[in-house]
């Protein structure tokens, strides 16, 4: 009994001890919760996945943002390219979307601005750490809609022909400077070995050929002649009626016959990149993101050249493909200033340098570019070449109204399959453009 009494007494003490401990822990927990909920600002940032150095880049962004506001936590979510295009629209309409998000600048970003889903960032340009301190007026205007800034451009992407100089030297091939020479180069490569694909084309996701027709329209029709059609402001009887558009599609047919692999519409674009990186194919047209990919697959001795001019075309070959990209802020964010700060710090001098070094981006803020160590040869080429171009053209699937863009994507597939002629393709695009214009 005595033992039992002492045990009970001990139990009581233990119970009291644990009770106090629990109370203490609960108080501490709620205090911390209260403190953290009072001060922590979580900024959800959505970006595309698959880029090298992304983790290190965002770790640095978190540190840099904390220099301005230590309470901001940047929570990054990465998305696969195609899934992102849908997901971002859904998320921005919901109540749990990102505060800051990646976008391509052009019709995609402008549509969100017009719909009131993207925040006007103009008032934040000159705040402490604001983007106005870091990027030029020209780059700021890349995110402008009706004179207001709805996005902070941190980089641009361009496209080039990549080629294998060893193969070219071995077979005495020279870099083509005109479209005719490009076709001749393809013919020469096939003459060397018919099993070699001169220019692998993977159009299973439709956008690959869209980038080619973007450049062909530029080279054949020209920026001045396409402007009103692309904006759907041309009169109805003139909209997409310029016969040069058909001529551009005819060039696609020529490329398909002489340069591309069989079944381009069933070929994955990633596979074509590997075909070039493995030196199975000696040439391909690819974005500025491809240099790093080829290098990661073990091929670094490649060189680049511009999309050649077309003989008799409206463009002298100095205008290049360029799509600005950057971050927008959701109009629904609960922390507009913090979100604008994150989008701004993303283009600070330090972050821009890190963007170039870690992700190989063609950055909008080149203040520290001289400090870049061991820039790969392709990066130096991109920077110098873009600076040397006389103008830039945006890609059709970003630039055009959604229905017209989809028509262009569909017609790319049809023309490659030979199920529609260039004239039929343009007739269809014109029909869709007229409908889209009427619905505006």
């Amino acid at each position: 009994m005595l033992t039992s009494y002492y045990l009970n007494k001990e139990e009581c003490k233990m119970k009291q001890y644990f009770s106090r401990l629990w109370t203490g822990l609960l108080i501490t927990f709620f205090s911390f919760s209260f403190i953290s909920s009072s001060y922590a600002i979580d900024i959800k940032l959505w970006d595309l996945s698959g880029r090298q150095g992304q983790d290190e880049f965002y770790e640095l962004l978190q540190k840099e943002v904390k220099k301005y506001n230590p309470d901001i936590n940047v929570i990054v979510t990465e998305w696969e390219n195609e899934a992102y295009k849908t997901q971002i629209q859904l998320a921005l309409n919901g109540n749990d979307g990102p505060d800051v998000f990646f976008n391509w600048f052009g019709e995609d970003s402008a549509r969100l601005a017009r719909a009131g889903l993207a925040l006007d960032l103009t008032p934040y340009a000159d705040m402490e750490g604001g983007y106005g301190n870091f990027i030029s007026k020209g780059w700021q205007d890349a995110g402008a809609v009706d004179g207001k800034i709805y996005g902070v451009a941190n980089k641009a992407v361009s496209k080039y022909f990549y080629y294998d100089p060893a193969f070219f030297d071995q077979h005495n091939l020279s870099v083509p400077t005109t479209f005719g020479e490009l076709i001749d180069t393809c013919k020469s490569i096939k003459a060397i070995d018919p099993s070699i694909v001169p220019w692998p084309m993977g159009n299973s996701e439709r956008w690959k050929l869209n980038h080619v027709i973007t450049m062909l329209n530029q080279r054949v029709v020209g920026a001045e002649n396409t402007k009103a059609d692309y904006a759907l402001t041309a009169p109805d009887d003139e909209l997409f009626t310029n016969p040069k558009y058909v001529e551009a599609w005819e060039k696609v047919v020529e490329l398909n016959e002489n340069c591309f692999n069989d079944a381009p519409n069933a070929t994955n674009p990633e596979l074509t990149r590997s075909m070039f990186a493995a030196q199975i194919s000696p040439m391909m047209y690819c974005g500025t993101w491809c240099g790093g990919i080829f290098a990661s697959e073990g091929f670094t001795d490649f060189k680049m050249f511009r999309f050649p001019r077309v003989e008799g075309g409206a463009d002298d070959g100095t205008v290049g493909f360029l799509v600005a990209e950057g971050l927008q802020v959701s109009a629904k964010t609960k922390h507009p200033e913090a979100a604008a700060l994150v989008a701004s710090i993303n283009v600070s001098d330090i972050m821009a340098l890190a963007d170039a070094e870690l992700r190989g981006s063609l950055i909008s803020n080149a203040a520290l570019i001289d400090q870049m160590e061991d820039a790969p040869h392709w990066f130096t080429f991109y920077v110098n070449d873009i600076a040397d171009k006389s103008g830039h053209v945006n890609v059709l699937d970003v630039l055009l109204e959604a229905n017209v863009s989809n028509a262009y994507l569909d017609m790319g597939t049809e023309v490659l399959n030979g199920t529609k002629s260039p004239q039929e393709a343009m007739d269809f695009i014109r029909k869709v453009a007229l409908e889209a214009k009427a619905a505006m």
Partner: protein
Amino acid sequence: MNKTQTNSTGFSLSSDRVSVIILLIPALIFCTIFIFIPAFWAIVGSFYSYGMTSLNDWKWVGFDNYIKASQDEFFWIALKNNFIIVFASIVLQVGVGTILAAILDRGIKYGKVIFRTIIFTPMVISSVAVSIIWLIIYDPNVGILNSILKAIGLPTPSMGWLGDPDISIWMIMIVAGWQNTGFMMVLILAGLQGVSKEVYDAAEIDGATGVKAFWYITLPMIRNILIVAILITTIGAFKVFEFVYVLTQGGPSNATQVLGTYIYLQAFNLLHMGYANALSVVLLIIALILGWFQLKASRRA
């Protein structure tokens, strides 16, 4: 033993009925939130024009979206493809599933469990994963299908298995069949195992064995199971999305578009939410009719 409760208004409820209502409430809440309310808004939205990025700007258009659908060639292509998938699925999945079930039930003596497991295995893999596997098999450059055909001297399609608008829908069918035939086989096998052995013994005395017994005994005896299998396949074929989306995204040039992918295209790529709602309502009506048939058939089964 029903206990009766009488409230102040004199209205009486049996305790069983109260239990039924209480037990139904959670399901009703979920159905209301996830089915009835979205369906209601889809019907309402089908009479308006609005986009994903203009959700607060609804414009009344009456029946315009339905009229547009009736004049939209791609909608008819999508509907036609759904019907192709329905009929091809019935032949491939139910037809082949029945034959496989019959073989497993009476045709082989050893290894039934192994064969059944192997044939059923694709069913437990995600449809997206299955589609990616077949995407690699069909690839015109590195795919094993082309390699085999070339090795034995047979021609391969110049536009690729998934790039040729004339054959791509059938290639999708093969993938769907490969994944779902196992399920049909198991379903029908369960029905076959319910057929009394004595019936076959009696038929054997009358001279009906093998294919004859299968035709005159087995098929009529599992008729109701077959009807259910056909209805499950039909409804699945109308709801098909992931195979098409992963393998072709509705291409090449809309040749493999089905209602599911076309609704997705209209809603999220072309931003015609009102029109996408109208197409969804059409799909809903088709699914309801088929669901009603399924319900009737399963009750009879």
